């Protein structure tokens, strides 16, 4: 069966707070010239992956221009849900006004769950089970203080509404591909506050193998080559990895420039590649082909190819651009960051 789905609305959200990597490096005695990114987003004390998902979804609804009650599926991809047991999807759907005739579930696959949510909504829309479905990637990522992840683990959300292609479609889905193996490069056990990772093991057998597997798999399946795409976005735990994998696959800096935001906002985990995709849509022209390849530890990658449609021109200004959220910022020092992130022991 062929894919019959398209993006009809998209939206992002980033918290207003930022911390500079130099500030983190000073606290932990690291060479301030050797930090992985410039700065990262920090969620406010009353924000979590659920509240950010709501804001991104509201922006997606503004672009989709549909009443929230028409949403028939809410799938939330996150590795930082506020509850261990109790879905975020129900709260988000209730707040949006999409309940009760609804498919809703929380999904976890490290940094990958956002695109997997997209894939499932694409399937449900294509099959005719639902008319409109909302897929969200959202995270307030945890990094152990002083660990490499403390310098990059950030917060953000992206939401996509899919439906059958119509006259105001933003981008049609051209193809999807998923690549998964059991590769334990990063995990967080039940009840643990911080994740653990296996340092360099995260690179070759995990990030690079899966992203390349999914990207090549999709291109072979679709009969496409890197030069057929105008824009590409890869999962971005740092700036180095996506640049390297782009080069390995044969993509240029020009193709990757809109999708690569980690240096400015940090790694937003399940939201990372979906936020990059949103920034591409903020800039893309109708007819352009876009590739998104996510990566989630554990490990797996989704590759999805889109063709931007005319609807982008009349829809993108209906909600704030990614750039608006990147520029809207307030810096905090490490003490405030520690307070906001509940890193201080109170009892």
């Amino acid at each position, binding site marked *: 069966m062929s894919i019959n789905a398209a993006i009809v609305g998209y939206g992002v959200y980033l918290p*207003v707070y930022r911390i500079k990597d130099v500030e983190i490096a000073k606290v932990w005695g690291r060479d301030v010239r050797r930090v992985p990114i410039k700065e990262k987003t920090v969620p*406010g*004390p*009353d*924000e*979590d992956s*659920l*509240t950010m998902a*709501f*804001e991104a979804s*509201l922006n997606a609804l503004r672009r989709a221009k549909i009443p929230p009650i028409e949403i028939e599926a809410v799938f939330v991809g996150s590795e930082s849900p*506020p*509850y261990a047991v*109790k879905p975020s999807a129900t*709260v988000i759907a*209730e*707040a949006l*006004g999409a309940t009760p005739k609804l498919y809703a579930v929380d999904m976890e696959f490290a940094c990958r769950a956002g695109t997997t949510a997209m894939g499932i909504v694409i399937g449900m829309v294509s099959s005719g089970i639902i008319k409109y479905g909302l897929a969200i990637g959202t995270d307030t990522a945890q990094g152990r203080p002083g660990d490499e992840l403390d310098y990059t683990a950030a917060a953000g959300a992206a939401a996509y509404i899919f439906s059958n292609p119509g006259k105001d479609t933003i981008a049609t889905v051209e193809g999807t591909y998923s690549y998964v193996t059991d590769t334990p490069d990063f995990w967080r056990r039940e009840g643990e506050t911080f994740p653990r990772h296996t340092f360099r093991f995260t690179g070759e057998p995990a990030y690079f193998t899966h992203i390349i597997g999914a990207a090549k798999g999709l291109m072979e399946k679709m009969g496409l080559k890197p030069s057929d795409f105008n824009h590409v976005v890869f999962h971005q735990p740092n700036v180095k990895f996506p640049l390297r994998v782009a080069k390995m696959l044969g993509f240029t800096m020009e193709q990757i420039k809109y999708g690569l935001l980690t240096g400015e906002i940090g790694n937003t985990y399940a939201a990372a590649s979906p936020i990059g995709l949103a920034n591409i849509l903020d800039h893309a022209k109708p007819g352009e082909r876009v590739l998104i390849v996510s990566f989630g530890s554990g490990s797996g990658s989704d590759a999805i190819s889109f063709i931007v449609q005319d609807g982008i021109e009349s829809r993108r200004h209906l909600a704030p651009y990614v750039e608006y959220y990147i520029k*809207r910022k*307030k810096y905090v020092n490490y003490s405030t960051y520690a307070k906001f992130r509940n890193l201080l022991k109170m009892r």
Partner: protein
Amino acid sequence: MAYTKSVPRIWRERIRKYRLLGGVCNDCGKVFYPSRRFCPRCGSGNVNKVTLPRTGKILYFTVIRNAPTEFKSFEPYILALIELDNGARILAQLTDIDLEEVYEGMPVEAVFRKYKEQGRDGVIEYGIKFRPRE
């Protein structure tokens, strides 16, 4: 304490706290929050539910420096009476704001945030707050 930790209470109040659902009186024109069965101004039962605008301005505010236990981690914080763009008034907590930034007439927008937690193992309460609008 039993009341503030009530789970049925937050379940009952979830729609009005999540959605900015107000009422409009078809007799006197008053727009109010939250929605209720009778107009708070003229007492008419001829009211409709209406989704209120998410933007408005601060009419008055006060700073809470000695907060109830469950809000302790947010203090000092600002409570403001906000007039939404269609005239409805709502009392709400401000967020993403430093004390020295706030002023009467400040443009604000609604956001969905965490209100409080009913203890470490209790339910988390969410709802509308307001933040400065650029």
